């Protein structure tokens, strides 16, 4: 059975949802505490959403120094699939595993709504390019993705934008970026929450695409 680690930081609040989604797809969800210094033997790692360390200083800035993070970085550098959702995306930006940074939403409002996302760019273990549009929710205050011109040109040129808000970014994100990957494509940061839309009757099922892609990638 494939095993997926879900890291819990103090203030994570989507870790249980992420573990539930992983189990729905026949994989074992392995809870990992931020103070752990070794990653168990797993096939993928998820950094869930929430408010790690109360978002003190900057979102994800403190979590980035959690004892488990060097292990996550090592796993990523060996090509292991890593997904950071929402606050997990912010942590990935702070630790430098994915490009850019997430700023306060341009209209200064916490945004909690469904969004349409276009899947594009290079193939990753967490997405399938091809222009399919999926509808999943966002819930964030800091989702305005920003990168300097040079980084932006590189990211766009290499097909590292893998999820884009199809109807314009509600948070002001540059180029409507909702999700980006690293240069090799194994590490993905995604602002919306696929783990929340994996069961009919609870919002929708479009979030399944992300987990189906992982199942396929690990097959």
């Amino acid at each position, binding site marked *: 059975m494939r095993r997926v680690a879900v890291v819990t930081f103090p203030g994570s609040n989507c870790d249980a949802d992420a573990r539930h989604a992983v189990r729905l797809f026949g994989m074992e969800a392995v809870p990992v505490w931020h103070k752990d210094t070794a990653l168990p033997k797993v096939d993928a790692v998820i950094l869930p959403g929430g408010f790690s360390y109360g978002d003190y200083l900057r979102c994800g800035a403190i979590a980035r120094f959690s004892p488990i993070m060097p292990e996550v970085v090592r796993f990523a550098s060996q090509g292991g699939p890593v997904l950071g959702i929402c606050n997990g995306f912010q942590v990935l930006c702070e630790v430098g595993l994915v490009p850019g940074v997430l*700023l306060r939403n*341009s209209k200064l409002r916490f945004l909690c709504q469904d969004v349409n996302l276009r899947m594009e760019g290079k193939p990753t273990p967490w997405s399938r390019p091809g222009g399919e549009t999926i509808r999943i929710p966002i819930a964030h205050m800091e989702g*305005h993705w920003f990168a300097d011109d040079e980084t932006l040109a590189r990211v766009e040129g290499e097909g590292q934008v893998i999820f884009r808000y199809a109807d314009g970014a509600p948070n*002001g994100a540059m180029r409507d970026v909702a999700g980006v990957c690293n240069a090799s494509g194994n590490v993905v940061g995604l602002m919306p929450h696929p783990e929340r839309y994996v069961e009919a009757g609870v919002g929708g099922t479009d979030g399944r695409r992300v987990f189906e892609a992982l199942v396929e990638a690990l097959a």
Partner: protein
Amino acid sequence: MRAKVYVTLKAGVHDPAGKAVSGGLQSLGYSEVKEVRIGKFFEMEIEDRPDAEARLREMCEKLLANTVIERFRVELG
């Protein structure tokens, strides 16, 4: 020894909160306010050592500032 660190947004980085404060000041009648950019100020008590400034700058680069969007200035003593 006392150390002060100022972290401010780089030019061109969107600051909606600064904009809101600027609008607030203007609506209070301070029409001279053209722009507000919000940053962070850290007051720190640190041990005196010869490489204090270099280490302080290192702290800024590693944690206190995100150099993708922010610049920093340190003052010692």
